[in-house]
């Protein structure tokens, strides 16, 4: 799937007849994520490099989208999770609908928000990105538009006419494309219970220096709050893999100072360490508990945040010590937008 998409993207970039690319899902999801089970199977059969190869291609696809010279319009009429986010958010336009459900649920699976999420999550307002990345919170279309994950909100029933209009104009000019989507757009209302109304508390707590401090900040806030939003946020953090939380926070924090390119290179490093289970096997345990056995009861190891040293986290960000291993090599791109360049 990833390789096929990559091929199509490369081909359409070279094809002068192709002006813009519309990416949409079939059925009730845009894309609910990568085939983690297959990766786990390959890796447990002793071949972590097969899994690494899969992610290598996926990250190249993410990079192609982030630096694409034509205009990508992703229609997010359904579930957008994990790899699905990677295949859309890096593109130019993201159209949300009333059916959109966005989430980066990786920490509950024992992994981390990859596919360059450290780039786009870290650029959401305030510390909303930390909140979304660590808790795996689900966002609806209105919230996606409000925080900037989506660029437009179009009701589902208008999608066919939107596609027809885009097809008709057949241009790469982003200003023109944007104007057309605008014609079909609507300003959705945030629900009363939307977490986006909680930005103040989110900023206050999720700006803390460490995961532990984020948790204690939330616990302090819980004393003054009556509703169940804070307790459920605390709950989702406590259910997640402690190692995943630590890696994810560091990745988002570092990603904030990096370009897409460096974020993806970093994701690939972390990903290889995860597959090689050098420090923790949480990925495999998470997949067992959530996707295979479905007992919903993963036994994380290390089991507590305080059992994880800085050195253990450092490992995930270092080069992999394996003979043939190399850092992710991203292709040279003719069109390098500002977002793709950062030095740190």
């Amino acid at each position, binding site marked *: 799937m990833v390789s096929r998409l990559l091929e199509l993207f490369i081909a359409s970039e070279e094809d002068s007849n192709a002006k813009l690319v519309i990416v949409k899902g079939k059925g009730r999801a845009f894309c609910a994520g990568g085939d983690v089970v297959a990766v786990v199977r390959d890796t447990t059969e002793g071949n972590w490099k097969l899994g690494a190869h899969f992610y290598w291609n996926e990250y190249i696809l993410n990079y192609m989208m982030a630096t694409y010279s034509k205009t990508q319009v992703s229609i997010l009429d359904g579930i957008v999770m994990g790899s699905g986010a990677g295949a859309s958010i890096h593109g130019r336009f993201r159209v949300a609908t009333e059916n959109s459900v966005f989430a980066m649920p990786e920490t509950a699976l024992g992994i981390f928000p990859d596919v360059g999420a450290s780039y786009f999550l870290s650029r959401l307002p305030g510390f909303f990105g930390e909140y979304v990345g660590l808790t795996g919170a689900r966002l609806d279309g209105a919230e996606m538009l409000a925080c900037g994950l989506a660029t437009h909100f179009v009701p589902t029933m208008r999608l066919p006419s939107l596609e027809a209009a885009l097809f008709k104009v057949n241009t790469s000019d982003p200003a023109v494309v944007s104007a057309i989507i605008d014609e079909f757009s609507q300003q959705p209302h945030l629900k009363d219970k939307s977490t986006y109304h909680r930005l103040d508390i989110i900023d206050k707590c999720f700006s803390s220096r460490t995961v532990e401090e984020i948790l204690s900040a939330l616990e302090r806030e819980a004393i003054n709050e009556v509703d169940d939003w804070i307790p459920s946020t605390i709950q989702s953090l406590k259910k997640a893999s402690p190692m995943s939380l630590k890696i994810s926070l560091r990745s988002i924090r570092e990603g904030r100072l990096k370009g897409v390119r460096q974020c993806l290179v970093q994701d690939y490093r972390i990903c290889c360490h995860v597959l090689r289970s050098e420090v923790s096997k949480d990925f495999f345990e998470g997949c067992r508990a959530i996707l295979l056995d479905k007992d919903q009861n993963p036994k994380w190891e290390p089991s507590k945040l305080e059992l994880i040293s800085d050195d253990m986290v450092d490992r995930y960000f270092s080069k992999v010590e394996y003979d043939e291993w190399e850092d992710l090599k991203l292709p040279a791109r003719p069109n390098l937008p*500002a977002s793709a360049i950062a030095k740190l």
Partner: protein
Amino acid sequence: MESSSSSSTDRITWRASVLTRHLNEPSSSSSPRPLESSICMQFSPPELSEKFDFDVIEMRKLMDGHNFQDRDWLFGLMIQSKLFCPKDSGGKVFVSPDYNQSMEQQREMTMKRIAYMLDRGVFQGWLTGRGVETEMQKFAFFEVIGIYDHSLAVKLGVHFFLWGGAIQFFGTKRHHVKWLKDTENYSIKGCFAMSELGHGSNVRGIETITTYDSATGEFVINTPCESAQKYWIGGAAKLNINGSNQGVHAFIAQIRDADGNICPNIRIADCGHKIGLNGVDNGRIWFDNVRVPRENLLNSVADVSPDGQYMSAIKDPDQRFAAFLAPLTSGRVTIAVSAIYSSKISLAIALRYSLTRRAFSVSPNEPEVLLLDYPSHQRRLLPLLAKTSNLIGLGLEVAHIVEFLNETSCCSEIFLSYLCYRYAMSFAANYLKRIYVKRTPEANKTIHVVSSSFKATFTWHNMRTLQECREACGGQGLKTENRVGHMKGEYDVQSTFEGDNNVLMQQVSKALLGEYIASQRRKKPFKGLGLEHMNDPCPVIPATLTSSTLRSRQFQTDIFCLRERDLLNRFAAEVSQHQAQGERKEYAFILSYQLAEDLGRAFSERAIFQAFIESEVTLSSGPEKSMLSLLRSMYALITLEEDASFLRYGYLSTDNASSVRKEVTKLCGELRPHALSLVSSFGIPDAFLSPIAFNWIEANSWSSVQH
């Protein structure tokens, strides 16, 4: 002739095509048309063309030295908050204060930013924490804050390092308990009132008078004349509490009440608008019979008993005075470091710009030449880069100084607790006093000399770098949003505060002379301040200098040591000659100012060079290490070229001097391909650079104008 005529034909064709394009523009269209990129100059990110031969992240770690994640966290806190004025330009977000605001607004914003960071625990442990780890984290945060805005750093420096430091160093337990926690969480705001209108660097000359009234057990503080008004007091215009230092004594006096009203018998005025640092409220203070309780004397070094008896464990007033300058020392360390970060920002911006901006073609049909491909441009910027990179060693040096400071403060702490029970535990106290008198002044001297010389050298280097970078950016360097030019005003003060640079450098030479005389008198080898090389035989410089000799660590070390050694000998001889002619020692010293300046410079540069070598040898072979040795050679040779002493006193022959010059040009060429990776290693996040460091065409396009 042939080629020139054909190229002039080409030029005509080109002009004609430009004119045709103009003529063919439909003149009726009133809305501006998007410019065609094919006919215009296009921005090409330097990352596309430049190569990265070494690991930038590893190099950054070496340069920043410590607390990387803490730094990144604080950078992120700033970037994500509206208080730090994020601004979109050319597809990137930059944060920088709005310097177009009025002085009052800028000050208000400084306080808001402090409140934001306070709320998020940035200052936790800055005064109540203990240990090297806390100390290093504080340094890291302080550096990051300075990268954003000098006013913000200075405002915090006054509150934490001067006021807080005074309580820590001069105060005893009762002051610590009462003030430190409240200072750390900003329940009270402090300033440090030492400088006066009539006296700045000469602290001993200050005129404010404090008398003790044993009838009431109070000190009475007075400003006897206009020249005694406290001047430049950071935070004074707004704040509540103030430590005043008379002679060698510091007192705590409240200058504002909890509501911010000025206390009775205090007069306060603003220092007015300045060339920079307008986010800091510098004020002036007059005291009119201000009464403070006896306990408000910061009594770590000397105390006054209720009946008015003066007591001090340190009999020598010079040493007592030195003990009082300890908080200023930590200030000098932070100034020196922040000067380096300022240079890094400007160099990163100017170099990135010169890797994307072109000017003039060598021949008419060729593309214009990239600024950094001009050897002259390389010569302007790359040595500065080498010098700045060379200050890598500072990371280590600062760590040493911090250790010293900790030692001193621990030592004085133990000493102090004994001082309190002085009479009761006289034996123990006497024992400790001896240790204190023996050890602390030594540590103090090293700290004082090294921090003074580094503070002066780095801040001078910074101002030079800023000016060079400003010019290298051309007109763009004049825009405040591009930081480089503006920073000149912001950082100029560094050569004056916490000790005028020239005065500091004279003190360095004086200290070196002291070592020299002491060693001669006692017939003992030199020990400390890195002067041990004076005990070895005088190094010999080869008659002809080949390229490989010039780049060898041995030669570079030798010539740096030779210069220092010879200048110290000459300086000592000249001063004693003046003395032999009947001049007093102090005046003899003043007369020999030229040699004193040369010597001060020789000492600093040798110390920096050695610090550099120390960090170079810790690396195992690899691309980072080769890069460091290239930079080390650049630093050494550019020093040889720039200091006239080498020719004046004949350490270099004129032939050798010209070999040095040729080698510098070669080194520039060798460093050129690495320029981008070198500035990338500075670890300044993009958001803290400026639009000309990135896509400056897009940043200046019509569509970016607020319509």
